[in-house]
Structure formats: structure tokens, C-alpha cells
């Protein structure tokens, strides 16, 4: 990473956060029955897979982990270039399940709004919760996270960058002042 950026989480921090969130999920749901993790494209996907690994080691069952692409549900279509679409696949479906949406950074809340719309087209879950690695504030919609890895106070103009080994070949979270 270049100068002007400050690292706020290293790989071990991400690991610890996800372990804690796994425990919180088990505590809230009193187990892991009917829990489906759904990672939001792109960096929510490896986070959901990792979280699923930790959850699996706490319960008796492997935890299903799905992928959600929200490109077709964005509210800024028509304001930016055509987004590249990713895959959506939730093995076993979400009907009657307790869905935990997983994303890397919670910022304006618009991605989560789109994800909730996308989920409702896939079925009717019993409940939906949200787990994020970083909550950086500046919400533009009435949306909050149920599980937060790290609360990170930021200025609106700052940039938060998350790297995950599965995609970026290293792990870490950086904050960068925008010029």
C-alpha cells in the first residue's frame, strides 16, 4: 500500500473479528440450525466462507454459504457505467432459513437495501441479519448491522479499502484520506 494510507486491521484482527461474530451468531440463534450465510459480491463472499468455517466448528453441522450479486438491484443504475454482473447462488434456498448477509464495509447502506430486495426475490427467509467486517458510518438509509467486526469512525471523503487473501493475495483494512 502507498503512503497516505493507514492500516487499521491486519490479518489476525480480521480473523479474531470473524471468530467473535461466529460466537455472537451462535449465541443469538442458540445454535447454528437453519442458518444460511449469504456473502455479497465480491468481498462479502470470502468473508461468508470464512465465517461459515468458524460457525461450522462451533456447531455440529456445516453451514451453507451462498453468493448474492446486487448489480441488478442498485438504485444508481443509469447514473454510472453498466455494472459488471456476478453470480447469484444460494444452495438449499432461503425459504424459512435464518439468513445472515455478509459484507466487507457498511457505509451508506444502499448496497444492503439492494441486497434485501434481491433476497426477497429468492424466497422468504424467517429472519435476515447483517454481519460486516467494518462499519464506517455515514448511513443514508435506516439500516444497521447486527454483527460488526470493527467500528471505524471516518470522514465521508475518506476511503476504506479491504483486502482479502482469496481475492487480493493479502489480508488487511486500510483507511486513506481523500485529496
Amino acid at each position, binding site marked *: 500500500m502507498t503512503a497516505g494510507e493507514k492500516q487499521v486491521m491486519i490479518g489476525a484482527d480480521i480473523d479474531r473479528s470473524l471468530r467473535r461474530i461466529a460466537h455472537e451468531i451462535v449465541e443469538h440463534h442458540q445454535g447454528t440450525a437453519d442458518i444460511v450465510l449469504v456473502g455479497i459480491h465480491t468481498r462479502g463472499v470470502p468473508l461468508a466462507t470464512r465465517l461459515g468455517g468458524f460457525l461450522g466448528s462451533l456447531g455440529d453441522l456445516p453451514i451453507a454459504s451462498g453468493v448474492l450479486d446486487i448489480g*441488478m438491484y442498485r438504485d444508481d443504475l443509469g*447514473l*454510472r457505467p*453498466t*455494472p459488471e*454482473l456476478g*453470480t447469484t*447462488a444460494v444452495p438449499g434456498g432461503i425459504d424459512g432459513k435464518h439468513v445472515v448477509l455478509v459484507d466487507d464495509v457498511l457505509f451508506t447502506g444502499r448496497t444492503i437495501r439492494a441486497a434485501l430486495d434481491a433476497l426477497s426475490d*429468492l424466497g422468504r427467509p424467517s429472519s435476515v441479519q447483517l454481519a460486516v467486517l467494518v462499519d464506517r458510518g455515514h448511513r443514508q438509509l435506516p439500516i444497521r448491522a447486527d454483527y460488526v467486526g470493527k467500528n471505524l469512525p471516518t470522514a465521508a471523503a475518506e476511503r476504506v479499502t479491504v483486502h482479502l487473501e482469496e481475492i487480493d493475495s493479502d489480508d488487511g483494512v486500510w483507511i486513506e484520506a481523500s485529496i
Partner: protein
Amino acid sequence: MSLLTLDNWTGDQINELLDSAQNFLEVLDRPIPKVPALRGKTVAMMFFEPSTRTKLSFDRAAKALSADTLSFSPSGSSVSKGESLKDTVQTVLAMGPDAMVIRHKATGAPWRVADWTGVPVVNAGDGAHQHPTQGLLDSLAIRQRFGTLAGLHIGIIGDIRHSRVARSDIDAFTALGAKVTLIAPRTLLPPSLDPWTVSIAPNLDEVIEDLDVVYTLRIQRERGAGSGFPSIAEYVKRFGMTSARAKRLKPETVVLHPGPMNRGVEISASVADGPRSLVTTQVRNGVAVRMAVLFSLLGGEK
């Protein structure tokens, strides 16, 4: 940006669109097969030639993206009273569509309309020239079965001369790295094969054992194809995809047809409904491909 022809597409560009179409196929499998991506957009369907599947398919695609559609067909419209193409287009344009899908018997008509209007135009077939979404959906059906088109031997059989499907298919298949052989009577080949890199075979029996994909074209009597050979029986004898010939195909070889089929002429009923047939896959892919096309034209900033 419009989609008028496939003759300038690279293999990478085609594969990118097919990847997107694959994602839209997943949408069509959902309990609620509809996404809000093009909410508030209007697509005008202007079919100056008869069409069942293409028109239905574009309509389904637009609606699955939550776009509204304006539909138009020449019979029962002012075209039957002699209105010119330009006047008809201007009338429809005044209703504010965000894109136009056009089928017309005149080669190049979609280009003219794109010039006149400035809105994205999708060519849904112009004369015997191009039918780009058909080329894309056929490529998708073959790619789903074999993983890639590179290195496959694809035989396109029948009325190449009058076929816009053949032209778009040849462009797409060769761009994706397939070896294409045209199998047709001389009279049903175009006067020039330039700039295609394709082989020619005088009858189906000569290459049948080597083909990975058999693409049968409809004999288009309305475009004068019937005058290109002595009789239907003669055509079937040399070019028909009969059940006897199907037995000589490699085990993994598939058979495609763009529809509507003349059963018993270019393809026998047993082959069309048999395990090698990708005909219904083609139709299903058509909706997803058209969703991908409409989304790529209308999903971004103006």
C-alpha cells in the same frame, strides 16, 4: 450504443456477454424471475416482419428486467396504410422509448433507424443480413454443452444464402475459435464467402462423422429458397438431418435449429425431439441473452 451486427465482435466480447447471459439464466430460475434493473425504461418492439419466438423472447426479456414494452406489428397498424419507415419510427420515438428492437425485411434498416433516432437499437433481424441475438444464443447453447467453442467443428447446413441466422452464427462461431463448414447446394450459398474463414462441403454425408455441432437452417420458402434445388425430396436426400444420419454422428454431437422447423425437411421429427437436440435450450437461452443485451445497452449512464 446499439447491437446491429456481430461481424465486428471479438471472441472476448462475445464471451463476456455470454457470461452475463449465464447470470440472467439464474434469474429466470428464481421463484420470482424478475429483477428491477431496468425499472422505468421503455423498450419499443418494432417487428415489420412476422415473428413469434424472437418477439416473445425480447418481450419476456424486457419484462424480466422490469422494463415496459411498446409493441408494434405492421398488420393492423398505419404501415398497412402505406406509412413510411421513417414516419413510423418518428411516431414511436415521440412516445419516448429508451431503446428500439427492430426486425425489417430490408437489409440495413436498423442502421438507418439508429442514425435517425439516436436511441440504442437492437437488430432483431434485417432481411437476409444479420440476426445478432440469435448468433449469441446459439453460441451460448454450444458453450454450455462443450465449455468452449474453440476447436469445435460446426457444420451449418442449408439455405446460407437467404439466412441472417447463418451470417450472425458464422461471425460468432468463428470469432470464438470454431471451425465452420457450410454444407449447402451451390445455389444456396452466397455469391461470395469473403471475409469468412469457412470451408464448404457439397453434401452432409461427406463431413457428418467429423462434426461436433450440426446446425440445421430452415428452408425459407418465403425468401425464394425453394428455387435453389429441384425438389424437397432431393434436398432431404443430400442435406436432411434424418434419423438415419443421426446414427452416424459422434456420441457427443448436438443438433441445433433456429426455428420455426420444417419437420421432415431440414430436420426429422425424431432428431428435433431427440436427446441431441438443443432446440429448447436455444429458446431458453434466447431470453437470457436478450436480457444481457438490453441490460448492457440500458443499464448504464446515458
